[in-house]
């Protein structure tokens, strides 16, 4: 069951990222959902960026070392992969904590965000498109808090299993919780990344499309 879920999540993630890679290239523009920093916030923003990069990088390594054996042979990681997994986990926990602490205030759910979310389920698709940026911001904030909430069971389950509090059945339950919550965490991280990239694409049309438009304009003039 878990293996099937894992394969589905990975397949959809890969499809999503391939789609983004084909239609959009990052050009260093700031994501619209992030607040524009003032001069005093620059150093905090730098730290937040580093924390985010570290968290994202270590997440990828954790996903690779934790899910690969599950996906390939249907077994829990062991040996070198487990060693990598265990070594990376503290880095991930600390960087995630930093990112969440530094971003929590900016991602606090405001009344406007709730309204946007509620309206997302009620308004027609035309209206939704018009408020696309606001919708995206609300969704990204929800994703952020989902990640923050899931980080707790992901970490605590594995920490608990390292104590002598749990017996074999407890250990198995903790491990299952760790696996499923980690998968949910990864899934939400992918969704979040998708919306970030989608937002960037909308704000910054790609160079190739600009060139195409220029060519059309030139031919029209001629």
């Amino acid at each position, binding site marked *: 069951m878990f293996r099937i879920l894992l394969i589905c999540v990975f397949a959809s993630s890969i499809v999503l990222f391939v789609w983004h890679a084909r239609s959009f290239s990052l050009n260093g523009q700031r994501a619209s959902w992030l607040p524009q920093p003032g001069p005093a916030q620059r150093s905090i923003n730098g730290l937040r960026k580093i924390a985010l990069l570290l968290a994202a990088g270590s997440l990828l390594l954790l996903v690779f070392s934790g899910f690969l054996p599950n996906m390939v042979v249907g*077994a*829990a990681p*062991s*040996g*070198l992969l*487990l*060693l990598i997994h*265990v*070594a990376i*986990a*503290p880095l991930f*926990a*600390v960087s*995630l*904590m930093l990112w*969440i*602490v530094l971003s*929590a205030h900016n991602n*606090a*759910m*405001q*009344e406007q*965000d*709730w*309204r946007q979310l*509620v309206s997302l389920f009620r308004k027609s698709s035309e209206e939704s498109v018009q408020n696309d940026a606001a919708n995206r911001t609300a969704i990204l904030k929800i994703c952020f*808090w989902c990640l*923050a*909430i899931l*980080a*707790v069971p992901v*970490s*605590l389950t594995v*920490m608990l*299993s*390292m*104590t*002598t*509090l*749990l*017996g*074999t059945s407890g*250990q*198995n339950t903790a*491990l299952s919780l760790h696996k499923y919550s980690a998968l949910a965490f990864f899934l939400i991280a992918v969704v979040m990344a998708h919306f970030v990239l989608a937002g960037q694409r909308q704000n910054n049309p790609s160079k190739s499309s600009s060139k195409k438009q220029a060519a059309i304009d030139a031919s029209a003039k001629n």
Partner: protein
Amino acid sequence: MKAFKCHFYNLIQFKRRKSIQLCSAFVLLFPLSVLPQESMLGDVSDGSRAVPVHLIKLYDEDGSVIRPNETHLLPFSTRETCGKCHDYQKISAGLHFSAGNPAVPAGRKGEPWVLTDPVTATQIPISQRGWSGTYLPGSLSITPMQFLQKFGAHLPGGGIGEADSLIPAENYLRWQVSGKLEINCLSCHDGEAAHDQSQFAAQMPKQNFRWAAAASSGFAKVSGSAKDMPEQYDIYTAVPASVTDKIPPSVSYERSRFNSKNEVFFDIVRDIPSERCYFCHSTKVSSVERWQQDDDVHVQAGMLCVDCHSNSLDHNMTRGAESEAASTHASSLTCEGCHLGGEDRPMLAGRFGAPKPQHLGIPPVHFDKMSCTACHSGPLPTEQIATVKTSRAHKLGTHGVLKNDEVLPRILSPVFAKLENGKIAPHKLLWPSFWAELHGDSLAPLLPERVQPFLIASYVADSIKAPGNWVDMPDSMIVAVLDTLAKLDSVGTQFGYIAGGNLVKLVSSGTLTSVSHRAANPYMWPVAHDVRPAAQSLGVRGCDDCHSTGSPFYFSEVGIATPLASGHRAVLTMAEFQGSSALYQSAFALSFLFRPWLKILIIASTLIIAAVVLVYAFQGLAGLLKTFAEEN
């Protein structure tokens, strides 16, 4: 002339007897083959838990009642005596008697017989089950009679001891003298304190196979030796044909044990005492005295070996391995089955009051990678793996056994290695060591007798000074032996010597070269006993029991037992037997030094995240409630 007449008379008498036996067998067996088989009296329980009293007549191998007042008595036959009420044929297919039957699956690797000769530094694992890494007795030209003489001391009879098909034609008359080695039911089922299995063992070198069961019983004495008798010896007249200075085999019974009806009381027990099993299944760790070594925790708790290793009438007893559990009840007699139960047998868990283990703090990956025995069984691993002596390999419990710890074969334990199912389990390990004929990639071991004449006299003198042990074998002697063997061989066969995990052979320059060969790989078989108490399990004191930089579980030195002077002090680390490396395990163990700090980091980070979530959760909830209020 007199001797010839006697021989002729014996032969005629023997042939007449055989003819009568054959006719009787045909007359008796014909209706049996037509009529449906019925269970025998003793094979079906009436449900009473009381033990039946075995006050029975003794029968010799011809089916005649034994009367102690008669002169020239024959030993009782278990086939005839026990077989009156129990299906001997069915029992003879049981685990302990079926090793030579090619139709019986080999099963999980077990302890081999070890052909040992200290002088030629030989230790060859032998098995009739064809386990990989062992040699069939036939492939070494060991006849069934030779096999029984060498290893029969720890056989319960049956199988190779009485299979007509295995008796070579040229040995036929000799077998008539020795008799067959029938299943000695008393080896296991005799509850009598006077039962002496060492007397059974003592009959083997004497070829007193027919007399062995009687010798082990508490009410018969056996003297003489069938081996000393000529092939024409007639057991019915008990007069040696030509040899008069040797004592013929004979049995005398304690008359007081017979009642007026010529019945004898056998203290037959259904719950076989563990001491009976121990005669063949004991292990002694070198340099550990008896008082320092506890019994298996199950035995300490009052259980018997047969509580778990039990069987039905077919005597195919459960070996306790999960892979060999053929039925639900059999699987409930494995470690997991009894202590944990399982999906197919939840109601059978806890047999004999087995406690369910908690395994607090043990990550589940351990149960995927290791067998129960890895943490719970065998001697605790130490920095250098100990040598052990076993009943069958070292003839423990028999008369005249060498008691020093250096006696061959060298068996090491516990060696943590992978089982066939990939799980790590403690094993006993034997490094093969023997002279061999090389045939391309394969080889055939040579019996010590073939090599002994070519050994250097000074080396032989040295080895006599170290009884039971091998002495350092110089390269010059290996060269001399291999050279002589090659010169005497007319077809140009190449010879070599297997020792220390390598094949040593001569190259054209007359020097020795050492190459790897699969026949030199150690033979290992898993051990399950003695099970230690939970407080002495590996891991009970924490991860450091195994995952520390000096833990014996990974870093213990497994010596490569070899007589080669050039191969001394060669060792392997335990990790190598587990398909791992000492380097990797060191790195893994080092990670445990930092783990407490890493755990603190993760827990602290998680708590901070939880606090942040908690703080903003109320704020978010307030916003959500306000939104709903505005919507309404």
